[in-house]
């Protein structure tokens, strides 16, 4: 059987650290890179008798995530204890949510530009939405560092609010898994609920994957993959694991339900434990925490415009292409920059080009984030207006842009252009050049008169040359058309 004779089924469990100021159940600050065990109290250390108190903001952020992803919310949501023994959770249970989570259902839309770049031309299911099972809120555990003979535990991270977002097994390829994670991250960033950086551990992902022959209805036995620390690791691990499982099936072997670990250095998955060893968590309601009535909080939420909504609006209001709208809306800061630049002009399409092509590459070359762009949105708008008004040519604008990028103090762009020698030839002067060229080229002029519109281009070039490159091509063309009509 060939690779295409198998179906792949993937489900993702994503843990997202919320961007609250304090922990889920205590007032200790949430911060990264602090000295070990300096952000701890009896609650997050799990000392006997310490009582947890809910962080209201964390619940609001989770409900907002649910709204952005189209989830429903039970009227009452409650807190449960998930019992297990591990040194990163010394009270021997994690406070989580079992049967009444904050969000149910909903889905993650897979944005075209969220797929790997090399795959955007071959998307199997455009506009796919991956259904979610649920989103619940729980507490993060402490951080373990494994030394050769001991394990060290730092509780600074313990108790950080953690959202668990569980998808239905509806993802059909490693590339869709990548698109899912990137799209989800975009939406979380839009809602400002998390920075969701996988490489910083703010977003963590467990993957369930199974394969089955195409003619088989029943899902194959699933393997859980752990230790996936970047989006690209998820893609590579899935490719490896899918090939491995297909290989096993082709050799007539049975897949045993188990957890495997991705070894990024070796580029392979490695067996960790079988499902038989898995735990019975004995969930039960946490008597220390009172349930939440969700209606009031839901009503007070401000839901932001989402990437796909912004894309549609940019196309409608600013005349950008759908592709450019997708690029601009993929990042909220970029979308805001573009909108600030394009508002109040009719040159949205041209501004989109300048933002995507010129600004982003200049920033990349200078290794600057958008937030530190030397060129402000209003300046970029002024520059594009100079071009569109025929004051400078596109090539001259590129030089003005480069100068402005290096010397952002220039306020008056028109004056800057003039100081760089980019003074537009005036209409009277241009008309003289046009007359000169028309008189000197009777042949091409006759061709134009006979209906060969293309012949105008060579004349345009000559007039441009006479003007020293300062002429506005649109104006020259207009004049030439008049004189050869």
């Amino acid at each position, binding site marked *: 059987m060939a690779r295409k004779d198998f179906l792949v089924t993937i489900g993702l469990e994503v843990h997202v650290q919320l961007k609250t100021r304090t922990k889920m159940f205590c*007032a200790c600050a949430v911060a990264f890179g602090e000295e070990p065990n300096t952000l*701890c*109290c009896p609650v997050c250390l799990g000392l006997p008798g310490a009582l947890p108190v809910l962080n209201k*903001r964390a619940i609001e952020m989770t409900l907002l995530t649910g709204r952005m992803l189209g989830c429903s919310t039970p009227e009452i949501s409650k807190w449960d204890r998930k019992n297990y023994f591990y*040194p990163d959770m010394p009270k021997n249970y994690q406070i989580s949510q079992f049967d009444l989570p904050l969000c149910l259902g909903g889905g993650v839309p897979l944005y075209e530009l969220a797929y790997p770049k090399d795959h955007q031309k071959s998307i199997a299911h455009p506009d796919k939405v991956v259904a979610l099972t649920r989103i619940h809120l729980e507490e993060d555990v402490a951080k373990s*560092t494994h030394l050769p003979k001991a394990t060290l535990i730092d509780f600074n991270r313990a108790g950080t609010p953690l959202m668990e977002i569980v998808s239905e097994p509806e993802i059909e390829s490693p590339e869709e898994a990548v698109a899912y994670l990137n799209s989800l991250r975009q939406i979380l960033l839009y809602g400002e609920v998390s920075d969701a950086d996988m490489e910083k551990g703010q977003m963590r992902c467990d993957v369930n994957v199974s394969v089955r022959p195409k003619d088989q209805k029943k899902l194959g036995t699933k393997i859980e993959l752990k230790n996936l620390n970047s989006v690209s690791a998820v893609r590579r691990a899935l490719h490896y694991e899918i090939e491995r499982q297909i290989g096993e099936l082709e050799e007539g072997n049975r897949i045993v339900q188990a957890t495997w670990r991705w070894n990024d250095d070796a580029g392979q998955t490695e067996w960790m434990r079988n499902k038989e060893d898995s735990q019975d968590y004995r969930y039960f309601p946490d008597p220390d925490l009172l349930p939440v009535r969700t209606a009031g909080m839901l009503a007070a939420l401000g839901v932001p415009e989402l990437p796909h909504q912004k894309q549609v609006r940019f196309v409608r209001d600013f005349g950008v292409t759908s592709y450019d709208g997708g690029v601009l809306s993929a990042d909220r800061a970029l979308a805001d920059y573009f909108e600030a630049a394009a508002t109040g002009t009719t040159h949205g399409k041209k501004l989109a080009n300048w933002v995507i092509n010129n600004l982003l590459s200049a920033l990349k070359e200078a290794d600057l984030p958008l937030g530190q762009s030397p060129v402000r949105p209003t300046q970029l708008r002024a520059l594009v207006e100079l071009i569109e008004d025929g004051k400078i040519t596109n090539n001259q604008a590129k030089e003005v842009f480069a100068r402005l990028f290096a010397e952002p103090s220039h306020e008056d762009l028109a004056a800057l252009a003039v100081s760089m020698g980019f003074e537009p030839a005036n209409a009277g002067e241009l008309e003289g050049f046009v007359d000169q060229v028309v008189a000197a080229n009777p042949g091409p002029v006759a061709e134009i008169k006979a209906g060969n519109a293309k012949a105008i281009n060579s004349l345009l070039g000559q007039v441009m040359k006479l003007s020293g490159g300062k002429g506005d091509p649109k104006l020259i063309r207009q004049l030439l058309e008049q004189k050869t009509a």
Partner: protein
Amino acid sequence: MPDPDADFDVGYVAQLCRLELTADETVQFQAQLSGVIEYMKKIDQLDLSGIEATAHAVPAFDVYREDEPGPSLTVEEVLRNAPQKSQNQFAVTKVVE
């Protein structure tokens, strides 16, 4: 995973709790805890139709804290009860995931 409706097995629960019971204790606690569960099962004999399910034993809701940071303990206080420590962290027997 055992069937929750199956007969109560104190040995299994003790194992989940990492408790080591002697043979005598097993017999004693099996009987005592089975009695507690039988008592709880009396609820099954009541007519509960029309009674709304509750999410908590106390009829109270929505007790929150604003997201305002407060003081944490010093690292010395945090580690005061640690049987073993190293590099300002709790040191435990090496665990393998």
